[in-house]
């Protein structure tokens, strides 16, 4: 009586391979989860960084078009207190209703509640939240006609010089 045995893995081999696959799956899974988490985190950081860059560009545009005071300097006042900054400036704007040029007061706020830009004009008052994330802000005069604004959050610090 002859016996024929097909070639196959032994039970031990199967168990070892299953155990190795299990370890690999666990390792890969944690890596993928970490990667997705990091990806989302980086995405949010990048979005916030872009948000801040846009805000600084917008502030620069406001400062560039600010009206002047009798001493010939731009009509800008700023207040800083405990990582909060408030900027008041007067500028000209084109009314969305009448398309006429008119004077407006623009107020920028950088504080725990984020960044807001308010416009007060004869046509009405508007307030826009440009960022709702907490930001620490510092402002200082670095020259007769230059100010420096530094914005810090938990991930990065961004600063910009503004010519007055």
């Amino acid at each position, binding site marked *: 009586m002859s016996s024929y045995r097909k070639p196959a893995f032994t039970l031990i081999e199967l168990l070892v391979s299953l155990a190795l696959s299990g370890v690999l799956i666990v390792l890969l899974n944690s890596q993928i989860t970490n990667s997705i988490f990091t990806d989302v985190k980086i*995405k949010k950081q990048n979005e916030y960084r872009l948000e801040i860059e846009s805000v600084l560009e917008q502030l620069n545009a406001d400062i560039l078009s600010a009206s*002047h*005071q009798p*001493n*010939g300097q731009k009509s800008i006042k700023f207040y800083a207190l405990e990582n909060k900054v408030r900027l008041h400036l007067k500028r000209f704007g084109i009314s969305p209703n009448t398309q006429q040029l008119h*004077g407006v007061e623009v107020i920028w706020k950088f504080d725990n509640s984020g960044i807001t830009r308010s416009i007060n004009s004869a046509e009405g008052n508007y307030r826009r939240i440009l960022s709702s994330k907490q930001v620490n802000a510092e402002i200082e005069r670095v020259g007769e006609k230059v100010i420096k604004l530094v914005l810090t959050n938990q991930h990065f610090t961004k600063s910009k010089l503004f010519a007055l």
Partner: protein
Amino acid sequence: MNGFTYIRHHTNLLKQSENSVIISAQQEKFELLPFENSIPVQPDVSAQFVTLSGVYNLSFLKARDVHNANYIIEEQIPIVRRLLSLCANKPELTEPIVEYLKLAGDVEIGFGLIDFLNELSVPLDTGVEVLPCLRILPRSYKLDLALASDITLQAYFDLSASQARLLGRYLADGTIPNHAAVMSFLAKHHKGKDFSASLRNTAISARLDHKAMVLNFKGETFAYLDNVLNREGNWIKNRNFFLWTPVN
């Protein structure tokens, strides 16, 4: 993917910055035109020169006393009221103007009438109406009677329209060449009134010390470039306004 989006946004922001640099460079080119006394070479851009030495200077309203404190020269208030009436039919603007100047520091180069009216929250359409009649500069910039309009003469010396026209003609043709001749002309129309204080703010020289250039693109005004002659005799920028900037 995120990296790509970030780079794309960042490139867009860089493009924005680049555009603002191009606009600034274009504005600087336009700002040089009045100094070069040249006309714009860009197609569709035209320039119009405006003489401002014959326009009333709002700094005449105020002076400093011996204690270096601001005070308003009361005799000048009716002049401003008459100018605002004749130019823009807005005599009620006189009080806010006077109140602001009472509190403000000395007026220096770099402060334009449009800035001033913005400080008072006056709508710009009113501002445009008063531009030919009022300016704001340091007090040393006198009212040049030889370059003044009939309306300015009428308001400044409280004359009738026909008397102001006559005075303007005499100043232009040299019949009235100096302050003494102006005084004798005014004595005929205002018996017993002393104009010597008012005349201290004036000159009869026809020497330009304040001019502006209005730039238009396809007939639409986009810039107002205001320049003054400084003490050293050089033309310098006073205050330039760009509503927008045409870029090539």
